[in-house]
């Protein structure tokens, strides 16, 4: 091999393109070897770059969990909220300053378990935020407890004989609550995930991208599925792309086919559009369209 292509941090003559988007003082990150979370961060950074949005107009909000760390690592205005409350915090940011692109990056447990109520209402109101739900099928950070997304029969620390609770199908949940954009990819499908993030950012209203991601240490190990690399190989062999699929058909069973694709793209009035429209009707000319609560 050639010497010039292998560099140690000290002699590195050229910075990694991600370095300027990361808080390098917090690196190395805490994520385990073969965890897929780092890939999701790269895809988000690429999508922001592709979208051409100024990073000054972007805010990233996370809840608690391994995925929640994203807000601490990405170098844009970001906030690591309390568990389950990423969406309400993001809603507040968006309403205070509607010009901001507000992105929630959080885990399946954070968004669908403790934060499930916020999730359904943000979708119902068609709040103009982008939600990236990293689904590793488990509460990873706290030791592999069962989540409302754990597939039936999968092992979790609080389901030592296998899970008997039926999981949520996240795209169906978002769709039935009225989300404007719904897609699911795996962390292996980096380019498609990047495109989906960019589309979700551009779509007005509530957009959701579920990213099926390996958790090597808790989910894979507890279920004897090998490493995160083995899970990527599993996705490679068992993911089927079906754009526009009926979201009712998107259940994920333990170690069986995972359907991926862009399922929903619909235009429905956003929360702020409905607000302006209604108050315009009620108050007529006296009403001034909502412009946010921050002074420039």
């Amino acid at each position, binding site marked *: *091999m050639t010497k010039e292509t292998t*560099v140690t*941090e000290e002699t590195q003559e050229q910075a*990694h393109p991600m370095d300027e988007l990361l808080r390098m003082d917090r*690196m190395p990150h805490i994520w385990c070897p073969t965890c897929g979370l780092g890939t999701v961060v790269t895809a988000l950074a690429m999508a922001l770059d592709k979208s051409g949005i100024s990073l000054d107009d972007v805010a990233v909000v996370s809840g608690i969990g391994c995925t929640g760390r994203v807000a601490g690592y990405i170098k844009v205005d970001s906030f690591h909220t309390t568990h389950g409350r990423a969406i309400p915090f993001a809603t507040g940011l968006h309403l205070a300053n509607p010009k901001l692109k507000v992105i929630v990056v959080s885990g399946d447990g954070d968004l669908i378990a403790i934060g499930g109520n916020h999730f359904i209402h943000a979708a119902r109101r068609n709040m103009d935020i982008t939600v990236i739900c990293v689904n590793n099928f488990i509460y990873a950070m706290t030791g592999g407890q069962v989540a409302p997304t754990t597939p039936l029969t999968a092992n979790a620390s609080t389901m030592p004989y296998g899970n008997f609770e039926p999981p949520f199908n996240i795209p169906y949940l978002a769709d039935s609550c009225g989300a404007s954009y719904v897609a699911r990819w795996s962390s292996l499908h980096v380019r498609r995930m990047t495109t989906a993030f960019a589309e979700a950012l551009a779509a007005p209203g509530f957009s959701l991208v579920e990213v099926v991601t390996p958790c090597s240490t808790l989910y894979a190990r507890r279920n004897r599925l090998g490493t*995160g690399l083995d899970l*990527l190989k599993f996705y490679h062999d068992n993911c089927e792309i079906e754009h526009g699929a009926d979201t009712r058909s998107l259940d994920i069973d333990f170690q069986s086919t995972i359907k*991926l694709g862009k399922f929903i793209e619909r235009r429905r009035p956003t929360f702020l559009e409905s607000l302006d429209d209604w108050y315009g009707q009620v108050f007529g000319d006296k009403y001034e369209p909502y412009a946010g609560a921050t002074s420039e």
Partner: protein
Amino acid sequence: MPQDLPSTPKSTKMKYWRKPLDADKVKVPHGELHIIVNRCKGCLFCVEYCPRDVLQMSEDFNVKGYHYPEVKEDDACVNCQLCELLCPEFAIFCVEKEEEGGGENES
């Protein structure tokens, strides 16, 4: 990635499965790989999914005690950047190499 294309063979390696008709005329880009050895945690994602099989794991260990990728075939990288996108440690990246000749594509 090939999943959306019909009858993709079930394999663990992503492979070229279609040879473009104008493959002999297309100028194939070349990439120069940069590996930040001490960031690597040995996940093997890059080695496994490089469509050109450019990388292999080192015999040596980095400061964290992991084997890390090294370039097996120096000229084979086509700058597709899949390794860079997949790497969860931000430890590998490619930059396009300026080309003198070009034109042939053996795959």
